[in-house]
C-alpha cells in the first residue's frame, strides 16, 4: 500500500512539473495598465472576439550589440500597447520576443520556433543585416511575412517576396556619407575600416567607396576587422600612414567606441564617419569623448519638431522612465504600426493577403518619415546626418534620395 502511495505521489509530481514547463516567454506588450493580453485563453474575454494577432519579434537582448534588440523590444511593446487601446479588427495584438544573442545561427533557430511553435502571423526583425539574412529564408519558406525595421543591406529583401523592410538601403546610406564628406566637409581622401564578417558593414564600405571615388575623392587606405576584435592598433597604424582626411567606420557601436579611442591614441585626428549602426545609448560608454565632431547617418533625429515624432518621444519617455528613443526603437514602433495597418487593410491575418497589403503600403505616416514600399519591398526614405557634440547627437542635415 505504502509503495502504491509513493507511486501515485511520483506520478502527480511528474504531471505537475510537466504542466509547469509550458512555453516560457509568451509574455508580451502587456506591460500597459489595462491588463493587456494574457497568453492564449485570456483574449476571449478581453475584446469583441477573434483570435489575437500574434507578432513574433527576434533580436539580440543580450550580447555585443544588445541595445539594438532591447530598443526593438521597447518600440514594439509601446506600439502594441497603443494598438490594444483600440484593437485592430477587434483583435488584440500579442507580442512574442525571442532573444538570438546577436548570433545568426541562433536567429535561425528562434525564428523557426516563432513560426512553428508560436504560429505567429508576422515576424519583426532583425536589426543586424547578417542575422536578418540568416533568418529570412525560414519566413519565406513558411510564407509568413517578415518585416525588418533596420537591416539596410540590399540582399535582405532579395531573399523573397515575403521579406520587407521599412528603412533605406545601404547603396543610399553609403552615398549619403560619401557626399557629405566631399560636399560638406570638403575632404578629398578617405580611409575605410570595416567589419569583414558583417554584411551590413561590408555593404556600406563598398557603396561609400563607389560614391566617394565617383565624386572625385580617393580612398587611400582600406583595412578590415572581425566582430569581437578588441585590438585595432595594427590596422589603424596602417591607415595612419596614408593620412586620410576622413575615416569611414561603418561598424556597430561596440567596436566603434574602441576604434575611436585607439585611433585617437595613435594620433589620428581625422573625423570618423559612420552609419546607423552607431546609434545606441551605449555608444559613449565605449567611446567616451573621443567621437566629438564625428558624423553618422541615421533614420531619424530625436531633435525633430515634427508633431508625430514629438508625440512618440513623449509616449516613449513616459513608458521607459525618461529614456530618449534611438532610431532602432522608432523604426520598430513604425514596423509594428505598419503591420497593424496592413492587417486592417487585408481584413485579417491571412498570410497571402497580408503580404499583398504590405506590398501596397503607400505614404504611411510613421515616426521615421513617410513610408512607401517599392516593388523591391524596400522603403524609400530620406536619411539624416547627425553630428556628435557633448556626447549627444545634433541634427545637421536631411538628405533626400
Amino acid at each position, binding site marked *: 500500500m505504502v509503495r502504491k502511495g509513493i507511486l501515485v505521489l511520483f506520478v502527480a509530481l511528474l504531471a505537475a512539473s510537466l504542466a509547469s514547463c509550458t512555453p516560457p516567454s509568451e509574455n508580451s506588450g502587456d506591460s500597459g495598465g489595462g491588463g493587456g493580453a494574457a497568453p492564449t485563453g485570456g483574449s476571449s474575454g478581453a475584446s469583441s472576439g477573434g483570435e489575437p494577432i500574434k507578432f513574433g519579434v527576434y533580436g539580440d537582448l543580450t*550580447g555585443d550589440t544588445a541595445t539594438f534588440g532591447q530598443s526593438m523590444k521597447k518600440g514594439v511593446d509601446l506600439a502594441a500597447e497603443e494598438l490594444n487601446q483600440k484593437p485592430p479588427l477587434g483583435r488584440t495584438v500579442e507580442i512574442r520576443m525571442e532573444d538570438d544573442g546577436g548570433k545568426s545561427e541562433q536567429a535561425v533557430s528562434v525564428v523557426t520556433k516563432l513560426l512553428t511553435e508560436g504560429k505567429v502571423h508576422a515576424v519583426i526583425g532583425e536589426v543586424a543585416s547578417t542575422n536578418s539574412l540568416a533568418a529570412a529564408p525560414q519566413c519565406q519558406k513558411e510564407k509568413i511575412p517578415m518585416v525588418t525595421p533596420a537591416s539596410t543591406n540590399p540582399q535582405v529583401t532579395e531573399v523573397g517576396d515575403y521579406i520587407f523592410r521599412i528603412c533605406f538601403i545601404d547603396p543610399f546610406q553609403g552615398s549619403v556619407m560619401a557626399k557629405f564628406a566631399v560636399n560638406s566637409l570638403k575632404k578629398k581622401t578617405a580611409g575605410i575600416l570595416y567589419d569583414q564578417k558583417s554584411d551590413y558593414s561590408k555593404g556600406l564600405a563598398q557603396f561609400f567607396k563607389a560614391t566617394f571615388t565617383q565624386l572625385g575623392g580617393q580612398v587611400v587606405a582600406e*583595412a578590415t576587422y572581425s566582430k569581437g576584435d*578588441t585590438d585595432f592598433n*595594427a590596422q589603424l597604424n596602417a591607415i595612419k600612414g596614408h593620412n586620410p582626411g576622413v575615416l569611414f567606420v561603418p561598424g556597430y557601436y*561596440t567596436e566603434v*567606441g*574602441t576604434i575611436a*579611442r585607439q585611433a585617437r591614441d595613435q594620433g589620428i585626428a581625422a573625423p570618423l564617419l559612420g552609419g546607423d549602426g552607431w546609434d545606441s545609448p551605449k555608444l559613449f*560608454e*565605449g567611446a567616451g569623448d573621443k567621437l566629438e565632431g564625428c558624423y553618422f547617418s541615421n533614420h531619424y533625429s530625436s531633435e525633430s519638431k515634427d508633431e508625430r515624432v514629438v508625440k512618440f518621444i513623449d509616449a516613449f519617455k513616459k513608458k521607459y522612465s525618461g529614456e530618449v528613443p534611438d532610431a532602432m526603437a522608432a523604426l520598430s514602433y513604425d514596423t509594428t504600426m505598419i503591420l497593424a495597418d496592413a492587417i486592417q487593410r487585408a481584413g485579417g491575418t491571412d498570410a497571402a493577403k497580408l503580404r499583398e497589403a504590405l506590398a501596397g503600403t503607400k505614404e504611411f505616416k510613421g515616426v521615421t518619415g513617410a513610408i512607401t514600399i517599392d516593388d523591391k519591398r524596400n522603403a524609400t526614405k530620406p536619411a539624416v546626418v547627425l553630428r556628435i557634440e557633448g556626447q549627444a547627437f545634433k541634427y545637421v542635415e536631411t538628405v533626400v534620395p
Partner: protein
Amino acid sequence: MQGFFQNLVLGIQLGAVYAMIAVGYTMVYGVLRLINFAHGDVYMVGAYVGLTLSSRVGLAFTRTPGGFALLFVATLVICALLGLLIERLAYRPLRTAPRITALITAIGVSLLLEALALAIWGPAPRFFPTLFDLPTQNVAGLELNGKYLVILLVSLILMIILWAVVTQTRVGKAMRAVAYDRDAAALMGINVNRIIGFTFALGSMLAAAGLLVSALLNYKIDPYAGVFPGLKAFVAAVLGGIGNIPGAVVGGLVMGVAETFVASSAYSNWRDAIAFVLLIGILICRPAGLLGRATVEKV
C-alpha cells in the same frame, strides 16, 4: 620603413602582454605538468576586478598615477588569491589522479569562471572609462603613445621580478626542485603543497595584465575576454617550449609581432589563424619548442 618600425613596436607591446600570460601557463606546467586552462579566465577576472575597484574608489583617484599603481597592485593580489583558491579547491584533491582528469577539471574551472562572470557582471560588454591620456612620445622618429610604453615597462619589470624569484631565492630553488622530482623534493623536507600553491599564486598574478590591457589598450571587457588572449598565450608557451620561462617570453614576443604584421597587411582577417600556423610550423621543425629541450618520457 617608419611604418615597419611602428608595427614592430606595436607588436612587441602586444607580445609583452602575451608573454606575461604565457609565463603563467608555463610555470604551472613546469611544476605540475598541468595545462591550467583557467588561466585565460583569471586574466578576464583581473580586468573585471580592476574595473569594479576603480568605480568603487572613484575615477578621480584611479586617474592619478599613484592611484592606478595601487589599483594594479590590488588586482595583482586578488588574481594571486584566486589562483591559490583554484589550486586548493580544484587541483589539489586531484593531485594523484591521472593527468587527463586534472586537464578536464581545468577546462571545467575555465567554464565556471566564465559563467560566474556572466552572472555577476552580465553578458553586455563593459568599458573602461578613459583613465589618462598620455602624450604621444617621439622616440627616434617613431610616434608612440605613452600608454604602450607603460604596458611594455610594467610587463618587463614583472617578468624580471619573476625571473629573480625563480632563480635567485630559496623558494625559487624549491620550485625548481619540485618541478624536477616532486617525491624527492618532499623527502628533502620541502613542503610540496605550499610550493605548488605559491607557483599558482605567482603565475595567476601575472594574469592581472588583463587589467593593464583593458584599462589602457582595449577598453572593452566581456565574460569571454580571456578566451582568445589565453589561447594565444598558451600557443606562445608551447612555441617557446612549455615549462621554460624564457621560452614563454620569446614565444609571446614572436606571436605578438607576427600578429601585428598580419593585421596591418591586406590579410588582416588572418590575424588569429597566424598563431596556429606558426605553432604548427615551429612544432614540425622543433617538436620541443624554440627553447625547449626534448626529454624522453619515462614509462
